[in-house]
């Protein structure tokens, strides 16, 4: 165990910090969930990419910097220290990218990874369906083989950023009459292909953060399938592992929130409850614990290990920590909590953050599903039988 950085790692941190200082927009961008904000965020992706910061762990050939996971963590820490914008391309770089790296053909890597790292193609995840939420294996959207194409029909929903994004990655039933986890394929498609209709869904805060997608005989070339026909479930589970595991929510995000919460507490100390004070201290502790754990996971992966069902522990931890921190902030704000903008005109980002934090325990597989996974896969508890 060596819990200090090497001089090279420190120098790397200094580089990232200097770059962020010079480049992070001074004014907060409009929300990623609306057209204007989306465009601003895509522009930011391209700024990042212009200096190869899009996805630092990827090989240079794919628009990365070929760095290791410790450097990635340092990058993320500096990213959140600088309060840099949310990643418009998070579903691409954090979920699909690693999946292509593992399952894609060389041709697919060449074709998809670089434009992803460069922020030229923004990706949406199209898995959920009206009848297949937690029970993802209930997918009914179909892909029927017709020569060297699949013809996609059906409906996807809750697809984040799909209202504006360029491409989607979805799971479709390619084997007629197949059941559950079998007969599914993982297919990438241009969201502007004829036959796809996007219908933005207003989220509770009013913006179109996700969308429904309707597929009406959409022709997609077979070469857009990732891994073998019928292997979609396994590929999707690998993607879900990346989503819940290391990448999607790096610790810096929560350490930054904890720090802001501490500052907020100082401002509101005179009317704060003792419980709020304890919650603030615990927020620091939990965010640090999450960071230590992530460094430990990174060390394990660097040593050739893998992260399995433990990813579910991470997902529960960060999503519930995020909700608790934002709830505490709302309590500290008291009567002001409901204001979208404070009387001085500044944005009440705690309110927006609190609302978003309520989705964390739902998306990326609900926390109830994660608890089932922990109980069954990590603890070996049995599934419920007929009784």
């Amino acid at each position, binding site marked *: *165990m*060596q*819990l*200090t*950085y090497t001089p090279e*790692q420190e120098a790397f*941190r200094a580089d990232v*910090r200097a770059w962020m200082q010079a480049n992070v927009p001074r004014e907060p961008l409009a929300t990623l969930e609306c057209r204007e904000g989306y465009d601003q965020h895509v522009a930011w992706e391209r700024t990042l990419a212009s200096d190869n910061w899009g996805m630092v762990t990827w090989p240079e050939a794919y628009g990365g910097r070929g760095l290791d996971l410790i450097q990635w963590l340092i990058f*993320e*820490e*500096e990213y*959140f*220290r600088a309060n840099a914008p949310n990643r418009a391309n998070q579903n691409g770089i954090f979920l699909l990218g690693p999946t292509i790296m593992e399952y894609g053909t060389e041709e697919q890597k060449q074709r998809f990874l670089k434009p992803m790292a460069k922020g030229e193609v923004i990706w949406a995840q199209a898995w959920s369906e009206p009848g297949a939420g937690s029970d993802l294996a209930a997918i009914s959207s179909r892909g029927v083989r017709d020569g060297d194409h699949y013809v996609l029909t059906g409906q996807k929903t809750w697809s984040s950023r799909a209202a504006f994004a360029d491409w989607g990655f979805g799971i479709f039933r390619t084997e007629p009459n197949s059941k559950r986890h079998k007969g599914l394929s993982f297919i990438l498609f241009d969201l502007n292909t004829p036959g796809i209709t996007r219908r933005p869904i207003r989220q509770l805060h009013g913006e179109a953060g996700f969308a429904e997608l309707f597929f009406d005989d959409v022709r997609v070339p077979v070469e857009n399938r990732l891994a073998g026909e019928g292997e979609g479930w396994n590929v999707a589970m690998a993607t879900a592992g990346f989503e819940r595991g290391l990448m999607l929510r790096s*610790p*810096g*995000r929560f*350490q*930054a929130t*904890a*720090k802001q919460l*501490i500052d907020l*507490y*100082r401002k509101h100390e005179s009317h704060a409850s003792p419980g709020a*004070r*304890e919650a*603030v*201290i615990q927020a*620091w*502790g939990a965010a*640090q*614990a*999450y960071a*230590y*754990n992530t*460094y*430990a996971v*990174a*060390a*394990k992966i660097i*040593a050739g290990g893998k992260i399995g069902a*433990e990813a579910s*522990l991470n997902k*529960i*931890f960060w999503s519930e920590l995020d909700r608790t921190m934002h709830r505490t902030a709302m309590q500290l704000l008291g009567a002001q909590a409901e204001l979208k903008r404070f009387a001085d005109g500044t944005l009440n980002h705690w309110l927006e953050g609190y609302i978003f934090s309520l989705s964390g325990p739902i998306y990326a597989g609900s926390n*109830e599903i*994660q*608890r*089932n996974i*922990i*109980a*069954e896969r*990590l*603890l*070996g*508890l*049995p599934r*419920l*039988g*007929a*009784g």
Partner: protein
Amino acid sequence: MDFSFSEDQRSLVQGARAYFSGRYGPEVLRRLDLDGLCNPEIWKGLTEMGLTGLLVPSEQGGMGMGLVEGALIAAECGRVALAEPLVDTALIAVPWLISRGDTEALAKIAAGEKRVAISHVINPWLNDGDGTPLESIDPLRHLTTVEDAENDPFLLDLGALMSAAQLIGVGDAMLSQAVEYAKIRTQFGQPIGAFQAIKHQLANCVGAIEFAKPVVWRAAQAMQDALPLAPVHVSHAKFAATDAATLTAETAIQVHGAMGYTYEVDLHFWMKRCWALAGAWGDRAFHLRRIDHAVLGGEGNKWPLAIGPEHTFS
């Protein structure tokens, strides 16, 4: 930067775990409880394993290891609810004596000829002394009163760190007992572990314990490296490990139903250790206050903690 244990550290843990689990099951705890805690053979065995001298420098016949190894072994002691005061002597008293340059007793401790326990004013009694006995709820703790207790902050931090590490092992053990029971006890025609209400509670314990572990290891490394902020990390460790073990104790007894309320089922030995350690070497409130001071104390405080994403390890 490498948050992982070395090959040597891992084999140390495996060795200790294999040794304990072969010789030191709940049957032994029961016998010790009945016989009033004396079986000198056990201490001899611990000595032969090198554990009494784990932190004693090699010049005095010990293994000369550091506090990270100490914490790893403390966790293994918790895992088996070890009755012998190995932690008090070998993992708390020894490094404290070394810090004071008091090396006289070390060779004897390493050789298994002497046990030393040191009391701190925060818990003015000894686990393994010769004063007036005090009865703990934990039948395997042999508490006695002391005349003068020390008031040294380093001693307190050692005690708190090693208690936190033990609580990790205690928590792990209670969790696996509850999981095993949930697999075999059937009601409504299924193992109770198939019910989500049971699964989710146990999953919560896994989360609490797994996220307390790296906090404890980080604290151990901070003490090992003598970082000025080590006391804050120790408090964080004690706090996190106490909450994780307490949650797991309450969950484990609930999962066992009435069986968990009996002396016959082993769980109570570990629950009692958890209750004892939760308050030992600084209780929850004490450690929370120390973290509070570091986090909210502002400028000029004793432990100026840098906070933010870039300060994971500063």
